[in-house]
């Protein structure tokens, strides 16, 4: 096991963690501000990826594809907030789970109806293809490195938005006391629609960015949705900082586990058995991590509310 391989895998883990953060941030923002469990968040990720693939195919431009993803997912988010989600604030979690589960069915089958069952492909833009050489002679795909950079920049922007701007103050105030900020003259309905569209846009962007690494297909949102839930539960629901820490933990555990656990078992097991045990354990590793965190801290690492 060479140090370069380890470094490469750490970078891969970082990249998947940061993409997960984009998903988890929207999810946790929506839960924190509006107290809403949104199972359809993965569908917005899928909508983003499909919009990006369709726009890029029509225009030949990857950048326009990203714009398409942001616009499409934000629009879909605003639409479902106005039509469905706003009736669910203040309902119990069970109703929210069901209604957003219904939205998953509608989005998935709707997308299948529009685009068919075959996956679409979104190519890495030529300018970002190929590897770069990092210090210590590590070769790493430029595109993945760009994802890490872009994700970190977005994370910084989000922290600034929530922590430093007037909108952020309103969002945090809405989290604490809905009636009070409504009484202070903030249009709470518009604020909620905005926050929901913002979360949707982040999910859509994540979908478009990851869509180049794998195929764009119906059902691509669900595995990510569950990982994003695991992330925010580990981090503590409602906490953006928790989402970042949780996302990096989940990304690194998932990636490093799948590479190193089989290797680890090979130390004292026959190779084929080691590969099987290792990969079985690796696919469960993040859920074991989550269970362990919850047993230790029932509201997650940075969670406060119960």
């Amino acid at each position, binding site marked *: 096991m060479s140090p370069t391989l380890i470094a490469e895998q750490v970078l891969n883990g970082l990249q998947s963690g940061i993409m997960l953060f984009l998903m988890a941030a929207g999810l946790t923002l929506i839960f924190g501000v509006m107290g809403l469990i949104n199972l359809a968040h993965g569908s917005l990720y899928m909508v983003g990826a499909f919009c990006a693939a369709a726009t890029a195919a029509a225009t030949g431009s990857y950048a326009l594809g990203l714009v398409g993803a942001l616009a499409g997912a934000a629009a879909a988010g605003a639409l479902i907030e106005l039509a469905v989600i706003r009736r669910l604030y203040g309902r119990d979690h069970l109703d929210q789970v069901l209604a957003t589960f219904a939205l998953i069915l509608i989005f998935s089958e709707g997308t299948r109806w529009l685009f068919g069952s075959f996956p679409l492909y979104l190519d890495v833009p030529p300018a970002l293809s190929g590897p770069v050489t990092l210090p210590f002679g590590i070769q790493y795909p430029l595109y993945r490195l760009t994802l890490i950079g872009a994700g970190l920049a977005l994370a910084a922007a989000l922290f600034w938005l929530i922590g430093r701007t007037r909108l952020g103050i309103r969002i945090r105030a809405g989290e604490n006391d809905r009636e009070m900020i409504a009484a202070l003259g903030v249009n709470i309905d518009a604020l909620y629609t905005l926050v929901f569209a913002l979360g949707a846009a982040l999910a859509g962007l994540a979908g478009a960015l990851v869509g180049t690494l794998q195929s764009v297909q119906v059902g691509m949102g669900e595995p990510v949705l569950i990982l994003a839930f695991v992330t925010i539960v580990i981090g503590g629901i409602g906490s953006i900082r928790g989402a970042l820490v949780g996302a990096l933990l989940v990304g690194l555990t998932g990636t490093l586990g799948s590479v190193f656990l089989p290797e680890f078992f090979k130390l004292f097991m026959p190779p084929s058995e080691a590969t099987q045990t290792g*990969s079985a354990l690796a696919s469960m590793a993040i859920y074991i991590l989550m269970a362990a965190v919850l047993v230790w801290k029932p*509201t997650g690492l940075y969670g406060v509310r119960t």
Partner: protein
Amino acid sequence: MSREGWLNIAVLLALVAVPGWALVADEPFTITLATRAVILALAAAGLNIALGVGGLVSLGHAVFFGLGGYAMGILAFHAQSYAPMEFFGVSVPGTKAMPVIWLVALVVSGLAAFFIGLLALRTSGVYFIMITLAFGQMFYFFSISWAAYGGEDGVSIYVRNGFPGLNTLVPIQFYGLCLVVLLAVLALTAALMRSPFGLALNAARQAPERVRAVGLDPVRLRLAAFTLSGAVTGLAGALFADLNRFVSPSMFSWQLSGEFIVFIILGGTARLFGPVIGAAIFVLMEHWLGQLSEYWHIWFGLLLLAVTLWGQGGVIGLLTGRAKAHD
């Protein structure tokens, strides 16, 4: 008798009359469809013990369904290949006898529910929903990478398992068997809801502090309900695997857990026959809408959305016109 009581009797009659008609009219497919509805109803009836009475929104009940399925799959696989299982040096033969399989399914899924509940019940609300979901995924991914029992491809059983005195290969006999199990579980649930345990569980959902104040432990009540609930859903899994003569990781999928919740809500939460009506509607829609359109999930999603947003109390609430059964 209340309107809900009459409705329950009507449902019971339909459960007997529809397959009876299918038998006379020689429509074996309808019997299979009814069997599917009855088994899914059993799974949801299991969940209803935790969700309806205990208020525990488990988004991971497919774990128990899948465990029951794999209990059947593994036992029957070893029986049909004449290869005993090795447990730490002890050889255990497989079996094709349903009573044994059911017992194993009940015990395995009940134990799993106990240990998952032990961990999951440390949390509540959204965290509980999410941790049950995570356990579901854990089992799902484990079964995919478990090559000994087919991994992603699952395990096929060539001949349906047997029950003493019955020929389970005859659709109506297998249906009857499943129906009896469902009715037994519903009777158990009804007795449970009226028992001191059921009343305390109900109270623990509505006012945990008061339950604690009279000296009962709400967490222990919930754990007992969750364990029982998991065991029943596991039994349904064993029957479902027998219906299809096939188990695969999809029995662990979280969408299935979601569908179990859907059955309960569609029929009516915390109603005895809620899961039965919900599962029957689902199976009918799957069949009819599936014939009309390849994209029937859209219509099902819209119906579900409508029921959640406007139809509180589910179909039973709609038909009997009474206020919601719970807060």
